[in-house]
């Protein structure tokens, strides 16, 4: 089996995650979908590192994880404080970007 399949899988997951981001309204779920996308990318990186036979891909994946962790922390904090103020976790309620 060719590890390219891993890439196909990664692409699939990424797309699913992206679609989820677009469809769901609950901020937390949207956030999970983003995580899913990140993970898909990580899988792709790892696969690449295997195919190229060096560890740089894994390094990138590693950094991605770290950054993702930081992002999740801040993001969830934002969600919580949002929920505190407006008692809702729906991304559509934060539609003040309108003109």
């Amino acid at each position, binding site marked *: 089996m060719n590890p390219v399949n891993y890439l196909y899988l990664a692409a699939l997951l990424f797309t699913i995650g992206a679609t989820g981001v*677009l469809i769901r309204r609950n901020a937390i779920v949207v956030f999970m979908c983003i995580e899913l996308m990140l993970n898909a990318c990580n899988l792709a990186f790892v696969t690449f590192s295997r195919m190229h036979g060096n560890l740089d891909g894994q390094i990138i994946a590693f950094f991605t994880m770290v950054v993702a962790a930081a992002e999740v922390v801040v993001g969830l904090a934002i969600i919580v404080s949002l929920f505190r103020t407006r008692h809702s976790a729906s*991304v*559509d309620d*934060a*539609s*003040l*970007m*309108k*003109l």
Partner: protein
Amino acid sequence: MENLIALLIAAPLLGAAVLLVGGRRLDAVGHWIGTLLSAASFVIGLVLFAGLLGRDAGSRTLIQHLFSWIPVAGFQADVTFRLDQLSMTFVLLITGVGSLIHLYSVGYMEHDERRRRFFGYLNLFLAAMLLLVLADNYLLLYVGWEGVGLASYLLIGFWQHKPSAATAAKKAFLVNRVGDMGLSIAIMLMFTTFGSFAFGPVFSHVGDTSQGKLTAIALMLLLAACGKSAQVPLQSWLGDAMEGPTPVSALIHAATMVTAGVYLIVRSGAVFNAAPDAQLAVTVVGAVTLLFGAIVGCAKDDIKKALAGSTMSQIGYMVLAAGLGPIGYVFAIMHLVTHGFFKAGLFLGAGSVMHGMNDEVDMRRYGGLRKYMPVTFITFGLGYLAIIGFPGLSGFFSKDKIIEAAFAKGGTEGWILGGAALLGAAITAFYMTRVMLMTFFGEERWRNQPTRSPEAPSAEPAAEHRGEHAEPHPHESPKVMTIPMIVLAVGSVFGGAFFSIGDRFLHWLEPVTGHSEGNSPVSAWTVTGATMVCLVVGVAIAWAQYGRKPVPAVAPRGSLLTRAARRDLLQDDFNHVVLVRGGEHLTRSLVYVDHTLVDGVVNGTAAGFGGLSGRLRRVQNGFARSYAVSMFGGAALLVAATLLMRAV
């Protein structure tokens, strides 16, 4: 001696400046300052006159070059004065009559609180008029030309609180502007043709250019003359100009300014002589106007308007004469001078009558005034005899000469013009007799009736100061007013004779204007006889109509011609319908066009963009997810693009 010329203008100019800038503190003495300065100008004029007489006829031209005015490449306009016999004549007339009328105004305007300003304007007028006649090039003449226009504007509208006065002033200025347009175009033509517009070069090179150019120049000059001298078709302003105080009417609209057109034509004689077609046009204009004015004069009941009509017609005579070329130039000027005397005298007389009659102007409310104001009666009567050309008085000589010259033009033109002139003489006799009879003879129609019917507004608000509205008490005017009238009367009696005996005036002017005796088909005596006949006929008809029968206090409806003549032969109606109405429509529609079309295009574009952005704005619904969709779609497009690039 040349250096005195500038002083001629400087004196009244100084007076105008002092009086207009000086402010109220000069109110007490202002009128005397004005009078003195104009008198000073007259004295300087006399000195120069003496100086000229001292020289031999050939070298009686003085040039004073002050400074270079507008020097641009080929275009050289200088401030240069030229004093020769022609301008000398005018200088004496202007300053002389001017000073007399200043004196008269001292009494006439006594009760007006803005008398200082009035004298300031009078001085301004004198300065401008002198500049006009002393200029050595057409551009400088143009300055004086418009200057007198301004002065006349200010003086006609002197009683500005009267809308009628303000309107009349505006009308006068505008009509004159049309004439000025002609003058400026003439100057441009001269510049392109001769490369100069100074009298000397232009006249000396008349021969070197085409007939057509000269005719064009001459016609443009004629247009200018028509505007300033109230000749058909630009005559409509003169009648309304009588809204001004009577001294103004006497000085500006009878003696001096309105004759500027004649001066222009005579001065430009060289050009006209070379353009016969233009000369013909001039004579036609003159003939038409002299009849036009005479007819109008017959119908007017307002004494000043009647005199205005007569002024128009007399200037018609002068223009006619000037159009005849070298045959007529001298007589045009001579009639101009004598007319200056008697017409000014007549106006001053009219003013004195109004002065005594609470500023009543309607002759149908006069009558039998001779025993109440004898001096006025006598002076006015002498003026009257002079204007109708009673043998021996000045009008007789000058007008007779013009009629002869008209015949002397020869050919059918000669007959037509001469006939018109004779007819004019008859009508003149008629309407002047009418004025005379209605004013000084007949029963006293001003008794037992209110001074003025309320709907007929006061011609001159000085009445508000005296302000009784009871029956008028005719009285003679004070000395300060009668003296000028007497002087002018003397002038109008002996002026003509003095000029004509031994052709003094002819020899005086000949070096400038040139002279030629036309070959008249009829002898001078025949003409004189014919004139006498016309005179008698005119007087007789007038006496039959106004002397024997009592004059109705209210004007009868009258014939169609009479009614038309009362309305200035429908000139104003024509102007109103064609020019005023049309102009109003034009401007209104243009304003609309500017707002909707020119501006509308711009605003339309703006509105279009506004609407577009409004549509686009809907896309910005503020939902992060829909933004994300577009972003995602963009990403997809990018991937597609890269793939395509690799595929290609």
